[in-house]
């Protein structure tokens, strides 16, 4: 994956070449673009290309990719617009101290996004999906010294991250329901998923991922906030590519998940709501970028809506609009950035008459706006015609969608021209910085994108053959031929288009009044998902703090009590509940010295319980330990007994040392009630373990392992001591891990002791001063 390598190189290149590195780095996406373009012919004619290699065969995971019309169109958009964006960023962030880092992030994102659209295996899809979220986080927060950037970045990460988890769950459910974990085989599985009882769960989870990523209402709020990012990022991630990942996913799954009642209700509903909310909110803004951001939200809603309607024409419309939107919106964002860069303001009320100062920008902006407004000769027109063909003959409630689409498109028309026309016409007014045309690196992108919006429409048969039809076919799951052309033909769609344009012009002329009305309405509501996000986050933090206080209260005795209660309960409850209590054994026939040893152990315990000072208790515990060691010896486990002796000795010594260090009161001063409770817990633990061991010994013993070790200890490992042979040879790796643990524990204890002594040192001088 070339972009990842490029991301590594970028900072170094920028150091050497300053902002001109953009031109060279743009070669990377360009190469990718040409590479994918070379596949156009093959994909448009024949079946999809797929390939891959085994990643973790034991888990059935493959690193596999898959390329059909849909993926290819996306890949070309990503790499093509990416090329222009990298050039643009070279000019836009000229002289920025972190430009290298910026290029690095952009290329990383490009790699992730390309990976996302060509992924075949579910896991890869998810990994790339998350990678785009992370790179988006880095890019939104690029200007990390500002509070608003950081907040927006975190918000985007959290919203899309939660969606990503939902997507992962959804993919897992799909894999569970169909038994496949690759998109290509899923697409070939027909109705398997639709008929599965898990369908609805999978759908809701996948939609959770797609809606958050593609900023659907009510998750749309992160996208406008993400405009805190530098403009190249907004143009690239937050209009042309990343936010379309959700759309991509739904389009991809349309053949296997679409065409159900749930799909055809939920998607148009949310898409339509998003379209309406997006355009209405866009009207209210005066900031160029924010206006565009809300129209992006609206456009994504439109795409989701079309995907949801799911008829052949709707899918064609979605494919066309997808391509058109990426081009005109990318261009308009770059224009907005260009204006911002050259005049130092993005407020539409403070921009007038720039056409003389920035003629090239003006042309690019107009090209893009004409496409966005859906006027004839432009690609946006084709898309809009197709939308109206799809929605033009509505049944029952789909009429609502048509109304929403017409109004939404009209408002988008108005906003498109408000961004692209208004700042340029009229008498020039003073801007914070004297306006003049930007350098070539800045206007190249918008001009190329704007012009391609025109060119793509003029040569529409070719565009359809290579882009629209393969994309639509991939989404529909069956061959679809897109035929629409720029020559207007009389009919319902044209009439609707005309209506849209008329409404749009009306809205454009009354934009200021509309804005005032919208602001009033929103102020009346006063609450939005953006504020809701803050409230949820604050609530979560408070919950976490509260929970930590309760669980992590810093009192060792409570920790111990809880732990031991849990131990006793986990051992006793299952045995009692499932009636698995062991049979009581009869008193065994023991020799007198065996009774003697047992008696010593009991005496030891009695001494522990009765001991007045802590030191006595510790030493008495040693008595009991030694008695147990003796028992091991008597019953034929010399190794165990040996180790037990040593461990007992050392633990008594170390415990005694610790006790003397801690300077505790030498005697136990717990109140009687506390003592009783502790005693009960201790007794419960003891009884529980005794019962468990009894039960275990009453089960039939499988001695195959013992026999194996006894037989082979000498022949394979040359040792007669089976225990030791197991430790150092048969289970050598375990032992290696164990001694590593021993050492790390030792280090940790050492560190703990040192920390305490350092604190003591710090405290001493303070006392002296006092």
């Amino acid at each position, binding site marked *: 994956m070339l972009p990842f390598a490029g991301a590594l190189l970028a900072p170094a290149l920028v150091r050497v070449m300053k902002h001109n590195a953009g031109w060279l780095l743009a070669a990377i996406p360009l190469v990718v673009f040409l590479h994918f373009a070379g596949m156009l012919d093959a994909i448009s004619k024949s079946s999809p290309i797929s390939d891959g290699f085994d990643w973790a065969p034991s888990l059935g995971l493959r690193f596999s990719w898959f390329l059909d019309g849909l993926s290819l169109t996306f890949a070309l958009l990503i790499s093509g617009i990416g090329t222009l964006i990298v050039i643009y960023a070279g000019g836009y962030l000229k002289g920025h101290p972190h430009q290298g880092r910026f290029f690095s992030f952009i290329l990383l994102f490009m790699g992730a996004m390309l990976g996302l659209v060509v992924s075949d295996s579910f896991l890869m899809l998810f990994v790339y999906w998350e990678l785009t979220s992370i790179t988006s986080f880095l890019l939104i927060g690029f200007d990390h010294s500002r509070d608003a950037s950081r907040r927006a970045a975190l918000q985007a990460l959290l919203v899309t991250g939660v969606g990503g988890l939902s997507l992962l769950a959804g993919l897992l459910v799909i894999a569970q329901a169909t038994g496949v974990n690759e998109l290509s085989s899923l697409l070939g599985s027909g109705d398997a998923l639709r008929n599965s009882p898990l369908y609805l769960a999978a759908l809701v989870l996948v939609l959770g991922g797609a809606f958050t990523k593609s900023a659907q209402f009510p998750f749309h709020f992160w996208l406008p906030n993400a405009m805190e990012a530098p403009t190249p990022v907004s143009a690239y991630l937050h209009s042309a590519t990343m936010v379309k990942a959700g759309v991509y996913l739904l389009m991809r799954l349309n053949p296997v998940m679409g065409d159900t009642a749930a799909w055809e209700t939920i998607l148009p509903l949310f898409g339509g709501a998003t379209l309406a909310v997006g355009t209405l909110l866009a009207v209210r803004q005066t900031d160029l970028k924010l206006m565009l951001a809300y129209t992006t939200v609206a456009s994504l809603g439109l795409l989701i809506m079309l995907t949801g309607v799911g008829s052949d024409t709707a899918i064609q419309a979605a494919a066309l609009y997808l391509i058109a939107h990426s081009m005109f919106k990318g261009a308009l964002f770059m224009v907005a950035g260009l204006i911002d860069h050259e005049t130092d303001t993005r407020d539409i009320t403070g921009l007038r008459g720039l056409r003389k100062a920035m003629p090239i920008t003006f042309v690019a902006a107009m090209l893009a706006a004409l496409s966005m407004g859906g006027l004839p000769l432009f690609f946006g027109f084709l898309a809009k015609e197709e939308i109206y063909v799809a929605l033009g003959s509505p049944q029952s409630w789909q009429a609502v969608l048509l109304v929403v689409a017409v109004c939404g498109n009209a408002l988008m028309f108005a906003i498109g021209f408000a961004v692209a026309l208004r700042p340029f016409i009229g008498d020039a007014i003073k801007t914070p910085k004297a306006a003049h045309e930007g350098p070539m690196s800045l206007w190249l992108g918008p001009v190329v994108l704007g012009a391609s919006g025109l060119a793509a429409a003029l040569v529409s048969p070719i565009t359809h053959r290579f882009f629209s039809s393969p994309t639509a076919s991939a989404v529909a799951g069956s061959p679809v031929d897109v035929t629409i052309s720029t020559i207007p033909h009389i009919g319902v769609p044209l009439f609707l288009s005309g209506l849209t344009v008329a409404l749009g012009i009306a809205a454009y002329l009354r934009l200021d009044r509309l804005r005032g009305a919208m602001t009033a309405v929103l102020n009346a509501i006063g609450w939005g998902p953006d504020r809701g996000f803050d409230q949820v986050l604050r609530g979560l933090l408070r919950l976490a703090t509260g929970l930590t206080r309760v669980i992590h209260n810093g009192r060792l005795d409570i920790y111990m009590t809880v732990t031991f209660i849990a131990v006793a309960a986990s051992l006793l409850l299952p045995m009692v509940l499932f009636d698995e209590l062991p049979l009581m054994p009869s008193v065994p026939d023991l020799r007198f010295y065996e009774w003697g040893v047992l008696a010593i152990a009991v005496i030891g315990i009695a001494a522990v319980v009765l001991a007045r000072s802590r030191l006595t208790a510790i030493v008495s515990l040693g008595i009991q330990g030694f008695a147990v060691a003796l028992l091991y010896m008597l019953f034929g486990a010399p190794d165990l007994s040996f180790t037990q002796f040593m461990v007992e000795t*050392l633990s008594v010594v*170390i415990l005694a040392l610790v006790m003397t260090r801690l300077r505790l009161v030498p005697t136990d001063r717990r109140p009687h009630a506390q003592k009783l409770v502790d005693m009960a817990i201790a007794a419960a633990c003891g009884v529980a373990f005794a019962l468990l061991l009894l039960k275990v010994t009453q089960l039939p013993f499988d001695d195959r392992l013992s026999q194996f070790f006894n037989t082979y200890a000498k022949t394979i490992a040359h040792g007669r001591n089976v225990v*030791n042979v197991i430790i*150092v040879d048969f289970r050598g790796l375990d*032992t290696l891990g164990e*001694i590593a643990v021993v050492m790390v524990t030792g280090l940790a204890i050492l560190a703990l002791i040192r920390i305490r002594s350092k604190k003591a040192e710090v405290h001493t001088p303070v006392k002296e001063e006092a």
Partner: protein
Amino acid sequence: MQTLIFRTAAPYLTGLMLMFSVFVLLRGHNEPGGGFTGGLIAASAFAIHGIAFGVPAVRRALYFHPMAIAGFGLFAAAVAGLPSLLFGVPFLTGLWTSPEVFGIVVDLSTVIVFDIGVYLVVVGSFTSIALALEDREHD
């Protein structure tokens, strides 16, 4: 704890225990014993010495920091597994050779290196804990 009897007996006790620990370590393959037990014995020996003569004396006698000893042990145990890779058998498979030195057959193996590694880790870790605790008794 620094009574005359204890201080007189301690050096002998320490020496004996150390010797015994090595004996236990080496015989571990065929008789009860081994690296873990041996290491515990040696650690107790150092602990006793520390109680009798103070921590600085033990640190001087050890020369290396106990944690360094433990680290070397872990390293040795890990390295003991490597030769088996050269022979294309799984990591840590014991390899044996029995050269004849002065007419006596001596069994040498990577396993003994591993066991010594275990011994050193246990000695090092436990000694450093014990010494650190004793150290604070004197400050």
